[in-house]
């Protein structure tokens, strides 16, 4: 069941250039599955519409987000101070597949701040006995610092645009990408996800991609965030944000 809650900011730290890691606290937060998102109301009405933010991690009393302040709304959200209240609607959408036979190999591919929703997914897969690995495309070394949390859980492969850390180049050029997996799950810029999906399809590997079309309601009511698919226009907010790439016509 979706809820609208007033949560309190208990931590708000810049963890990489332009990335805020924010912890919100409350009571009776509804259960979340990895890959779902929340809508956060911009403080002071900075934007009329709430901003969709993917969930980094969540419990019954905490919600962790990683936010890049790119527009007026996300900037106002990132300006929130410890102790401020934020209005949050959660959980929204359909997340990643989490049920795999024990021992399955799953690759999680993240690009930029798109690595955020993969953290909760990684935790879930590891708990379920899935052999998960992580492949991230980042801007440069400081972003990689934030990835220590993932590294503690699973093998991690990092590419940077500037070569300042790990592999220099695109995720699709990383040796780890060429291995076989039972599933690739990803979140990041569309060009990256399209390239990954194309390669996965060629190799017969199923893939899931988390999209982030512009949305208004987040509930499947306004039909603004549609993505053309084999089943017609589907709502990223309700039918996604995670789609099997075989459905997508991008």
């Amino acid at each position, binding site marked *: 069941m979706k809820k*609208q809650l007033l949560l309190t900011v208990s931590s708000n730290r810049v963890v990489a250039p332009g990335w805020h890691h924010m912890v919100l606290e409350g009571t009776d937060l509804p259960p979340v599955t990895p890959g779902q998102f929340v809508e956060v109301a911009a403080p002071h009405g900075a934007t*009329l519409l709430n901003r969709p933010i993917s969930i980094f991690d969540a419990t019954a009393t905490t919600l962790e987000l990683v936010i890049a302040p790119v527009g007026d709304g996300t900037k106002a959200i990132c300006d929130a101070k410890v102790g401020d209240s934020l209005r949050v609607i959660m959980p929204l959408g359909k997340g990643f597949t989490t049920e795999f036979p024990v021992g399955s190999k799953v690759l999680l591919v993240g690009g930029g701040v798109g690595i955020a929703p993969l953290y909760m997914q990684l935790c879930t897969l590891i708990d379920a006995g899935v052999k998960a690995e992580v492949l991230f495309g980042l801007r440069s070394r400081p972003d990689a610092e934030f990835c220590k949390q993932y590294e503690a859980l699973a093998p991690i492969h990092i590419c940077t645009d500037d070569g300042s850390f790990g592999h220099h180049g695109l995720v699709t050029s990383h040796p780890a990408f060429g291995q076989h997996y039972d599933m690739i799950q990803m979140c990041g810029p569309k060009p990256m996800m399209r390239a990954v999906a194309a390669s996965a399809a060629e190799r017969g590997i199923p893939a899931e991609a988390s999209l982030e079309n512009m949305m208004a*309601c987040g*509930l499947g*009511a*306004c039909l*603004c*965030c*549609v993505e053309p698919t084999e089943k017609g*226009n589907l709502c990223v907010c309700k039918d996604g944000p995670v789609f099997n790439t075989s459905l997508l016509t991008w």
Partner: protein
Amino acid sequence: MVTDMSTQLGDLVLSNPVMTASGTFGYGFEYEDFMALDNLGAFIVKGTTLEPRQGNDYPRMAQTPAGMLNAVGLQNPGVEHFIEHTWPRYGALESKVIVNVSGAKIEDYVRVAELLAPLEGLRAIELNISCPNVKQGGMAFGTTCDGAASVTRAVRDAWPRHLMVKLSPNVTSITDIALAVEGAGADSVSLINTLMGMAIDIERRRPMLSTVTGGMSGPAVKPVAVRMVWQVAKAVKIPVVGLGGIASAADAIEFIMAGASAVQIGTYNFVDPSAAGRIPAEIDSWCQAHGVSRLMELKGII
């Protein structure tokens, strides 16, 4: 409720005047986690056409100051899907449902009305002659008196119960259009639909919407909507349903004072999904604090 919140749109009696606007509330179910739908006076479901429609290409929305633009273009699974799959789910809520009927040709509007007529629990339809986001029909009907009257008259003959007609604000004289649809047999008018607007992404040097122009809604349009409701309510004898930027009980009361017999919450459903369900009680509180025992005492006092 302590206050008498009831309102009458001709033969259509509502427990309270707060409705939700078509296209902002899905089929109602999308909001069930956030309110008891029964709290609403009525809810108007997605614009329904004869054939299924995929709507316009993405991108379909843009944020604007205190508002938004949309160009959804009537995406919906068609009237037959509605009748077979959606309508049966309403059960006890049937009397709260109003179907927004859209189309490109008069025959299509009529056919949709004919197909809906056998749903006896469906008390009203809202005729959308003002959608700015479809190439044919839609707003074209709503911007001339003859066009508005023709489609209203044709549907009037096909639809036996309450017929509400939704008017476009993109006209020189909305009172002329309102008088035309009143003369053609409308039981009520709802206004305003969206103002036609546009926004450009200057970095990408292209329009924000795939359709270039789209419909503007949200608090930004409220003054235009209040003005038009006031003008139309003075001009016609049928009830007026006001909408455009309503975000609070105070906004709803403003429209009622301007002459509205009922109101619709639209874009604000996207901002606070529980708002529409809460506003009736907030109006009740306001009335109690202001010594108003029957809400409709306030209707048209300006």
